[in-house]
């Protein structure tokens, strides 16, 4: 039986495809009409076990499933959350939390001090402690004790400034009646996790989404949205397209690429916000155990060759700012020492320093040599696949060549970079890290600059891979941990910044601001200052409509981006204003997103013509 005779096949196939694609439903039809908030996230979930999960993405989901004793708002304020109140005694050794009387686990059991005691004892005093205590808390906390049903007490061995942060905001109290029956090291908690937060777990579809439904009995009042769907992506491209298409309402654990801001702003229903509490620091670290990076003046000369503002303008299109040399950035509010700024580019000065050090070009090839004759030729180690790093490194290499230092860019996989930096097998390493004001300041400096983290070359170093060793610094770092008086501690932290800025174990480059975008067409009540997808913001959201919007009391000044940032850039010797179309939100009259530009129409027409031509040829009798 020869059914495929001749001309009918192409037509038949075409019709079948056409019919199939027409009968397939559109996503909107499938979704029931309730207040469903869709949040895009560029990662998977490892588990809902707060002890073992590593992913930022999973962390976001616990934040809605579980409550911590204290919530840290974007400006760094500690808000009692699951705890009604907390107090610290005058010797700074006993911290007492009073739990909310009306707080219940998702399965209806009341949340008691015993649950908190149990959770912290897992970390502090159980068979699992050495595997669960990621924060080194056992060194500082003597015991945890449930005083009565709703009061829990922590006793410290010695004053420890970051204690409140770790106890109150990092460790999630867990229900004892569930976790006492499982192995906390291997418990996945993926099936029906029982939490304390505003949303309950509903469903997890691997690689697609996590669905959370509202907790009707939430002790802080029922949230106004009924459901959160956390949509998982593998590429931020698809995530951004879905946001632009309206398939998701907001995004988390990812930031908007600066180049997309103009495109996003063209849609009046999309708002782009610069988060006030978090940004990412980029820096180049020097191998201090290697000549000539061991010379402070040499590092300073390199600092003078770099034009931090130009990197911000070129690579970030202006969505960032030059980083202060002292590691701690203005982002941290009072912790930042305003007298520590940054070295502006000064090539003459850099050349002078190099000349003074005796690093001059003797053989006339444009590259300086050290007094013993080796060329100043180095590699900048950066992580492959991170375009922003590569581009910044390229610019730095360009400036270094202007003062007679040759720098090659070596992009390697994250594993290779980590290994080589850790073991001291590099010259200059390009690195970055996210910073948040809601995180304890100690987290960013202690391990980064403490000589305990700087073993000799060949052994793996942790965060202090520049191998910075300075007894004065070590002492200051220890001291700030023990000082609970905010004013005194601030003084020490300020001093640390001055030393870092002077010694330059690493040259901070710039802060990349965290841009996030969200849609305003379905929900109102977004709190931009906290971050549109933060817990406070999500709790205040409600469907657009006649309802009254409650405005949260604490409002910090935010920078919603309504206009494309204009930056000046030196191009080929002349300064020019980067002219991208300037569009202000709300007053746009151009084509809405999804409108098809002429080019696409042309491309589609061409495609159809070609297809028709092929079909015509195919249908002709031979």
């Amino acid at each position, binding site marked *: 039986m020869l059914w495929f005779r001749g001309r009918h096949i192409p037509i038949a196939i075409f019709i079948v495809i056409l019919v199939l694609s027409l009968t397939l439903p559109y996503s909107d039809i499938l979704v029931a009409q309730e207040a469903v908030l869709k949040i895009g996230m560029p990662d998977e979930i490892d588990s809902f076990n707060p002890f073992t999960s590593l992913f930022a993405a999973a962390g976001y989901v616990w934040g809605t499933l579980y409550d911590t004793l204290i919530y840290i708002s974007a400006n760094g304020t500690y808000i009692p959350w699951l705890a009604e109140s907390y107090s610290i005694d005058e010797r700074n050794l006993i911290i007492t939390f009073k739990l909310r009387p009306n707080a219940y686990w998702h399965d209806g059991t009341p949340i008691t001090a015993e649950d908190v005691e149990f959770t912290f004892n897992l970390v502090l005093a159980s068979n699992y402690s050495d595997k669960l205590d990621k924060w080194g808390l056992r060194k500082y906390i003597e015991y945890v004790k449930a005083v009565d049903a709703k009061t829990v007490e922590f006793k410290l061995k010695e004053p420890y400034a970051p204690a409140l942060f770790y106890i109150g905001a990092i460790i999630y109290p867990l229900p004892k009646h569930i976790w006492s029956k499982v192995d906390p090291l291997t418990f996945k908690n993926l099936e029906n996790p029982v939490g304390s937060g505003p949303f309950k777990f509903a469903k997890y579809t691997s690689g697609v989404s996590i669905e959370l439904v509202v907790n009707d009995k939430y002790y802080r009042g029922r949230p106004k949205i009924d459901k959160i769907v956390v949509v998982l992506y593998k590429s931020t491209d698809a995530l951004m397209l879905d946001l632009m298409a309206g398939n998701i309402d907001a995004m988390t654990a990812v930031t908007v690429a600066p180049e*997309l801001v103009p495109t996003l702003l063209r849609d009046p229903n999309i708002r782009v916000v610069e988060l006030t509490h978090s940004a990412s620091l980029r820096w180049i670290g020097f191998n201090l155990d290697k000549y000539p990076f061991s010379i402070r003046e040499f590092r300073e000369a390199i600092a003078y060759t770099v034009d931090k503002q130009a990197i911000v303008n070129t690579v970030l299109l202006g969505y960032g700012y030059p980083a202060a040399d002292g590691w701690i950035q203005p982002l941290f509010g009072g912790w930042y020492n305003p007298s520590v700024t940054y070295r502006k580019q000064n090539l003459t000065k850099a050349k002078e320093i190099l000349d003074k050090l005796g690093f001059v070009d003797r053989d006339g090839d444009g590259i300086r040599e050290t007094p013993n004759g080796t060329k100043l030729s180095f590699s900048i180690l950066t992580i492959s696949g991170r375009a922003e790093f590569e581009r910044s490194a390229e*610019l730095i290499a360009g400036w270094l060549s202007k003062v007679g230092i040759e720098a090659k860019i070596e992009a390697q996989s994250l594993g290779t970079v980590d290994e080589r930096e850790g073991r001291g097998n590099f010259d200059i390493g390009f690195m970055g890290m996210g910073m948040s004001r809601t995180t304890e300041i100690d987290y960013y400096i202690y391990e980064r600059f403490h000589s305990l983290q700087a073993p000799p070359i060949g052994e793996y170093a942790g965060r202090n891979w520049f191998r910075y060793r300075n007894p004065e610094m070590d002492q200051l770092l220890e001291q700030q941990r023990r000082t609970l008086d905010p004013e005194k501690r601030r003084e020490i932290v300020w001093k640390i910044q001055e030393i870092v800025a002077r010694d330059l174990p690493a040259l901070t480059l710039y802060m990349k601001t965290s841009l996030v975008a969200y849609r305003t067409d379905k929900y109102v009540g977004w709190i931009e200052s906290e971050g549109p997808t933060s817990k406070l913001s999500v709790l205040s959201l409600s469907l657009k409509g006649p309802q009254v919007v409650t405005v949260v009391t604490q409002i910090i000044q935010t920078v919603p981006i309504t206009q494309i940032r204009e930056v000046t850039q030196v191009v080929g010797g002349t300064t020019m204003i980067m002219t991208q179309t300037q569009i202000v939100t709300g007053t746009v009259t151009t084509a809405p997103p999804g409108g098809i530009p002429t080019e696409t129409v042309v491309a589609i027409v061409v495609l159809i013509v070609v297809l028709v031509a092929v079909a015509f040829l195919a249908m002709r009798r031979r």
Partner: protein
Amino acid sequence: MVSILRDLRYILIENRMGLIGFAIIMFFTLIAIFADIIAPYNPYELVGPPYTPPNERFILGTNDIGQDIFSEFIYGSRISLYVGFTAPILSSIIGTILGIIAGYLGGYIDELVVGAVDVMLALPSLPLIIILAAYLGPSLNNIILVLAIFGWPGFARMVRSQVLSLRERAYVEAARATGAGSFRIMFRHILPHVVPLVIANIVLSATSAILTEAGLSFLGLGDPIAKSWGQILRRAQVGHALHQGLWLWVFTPGLAIALLGTGFTLLGVAIEEKVNPRLKHSRR
């Protein structure tokens, strides 16, 4: 000599496919050679604001830090041609030598080579290429090396099966009878008969070499500094070119890859038709 010329005339002039393929390759070769003259700017220099849409000054616009995409594109032809030629040639050299030795000598050596080929073909190639590329570090030559490592088994297998039938031929027997050594027979008498087919396959596998290089660059495993078409595509993707409507930035390098690949395949098919006796009568 005359026969080679006749073959060439057939491949390049009489066979229209071969002619078109050759023309495409020559077109890109000329672009690559005269890149300095054709490209309006130095592809490494920042010549305009980032993300400029195409205009009179920048035919394809500028990239994420303000380099001229058209200039990058012109220089990119060099890398694609370089990869397209070197990787298959390298793998063909390894493959041909091993294939001839295995096919002619047989025995344990044959078992060994065939075993190695089997192992190579049973390895999941794409994940392994990713591992190797990540391990060796991103540089153009490393990528060529990786391509050669995964390319030779195909050549070895093909050459070996040719040699198996060639070694029973009368002229080989004759050479053996006159007391010629194995080495001499292999490389003086058998090799010339294998070379045409090898050349056809070099040209044919240039396409996949170009595609794989572009694919690795696209995954971020290529040399980030090199201006290859794959790199341009990756920059476009990382820089959200399509989201911004800068579709020419994505369209052009992809089209060029497809076009050059087509050129190589057309020429390769034309050569193969001529040199592979099995295919001789396939086109009238």
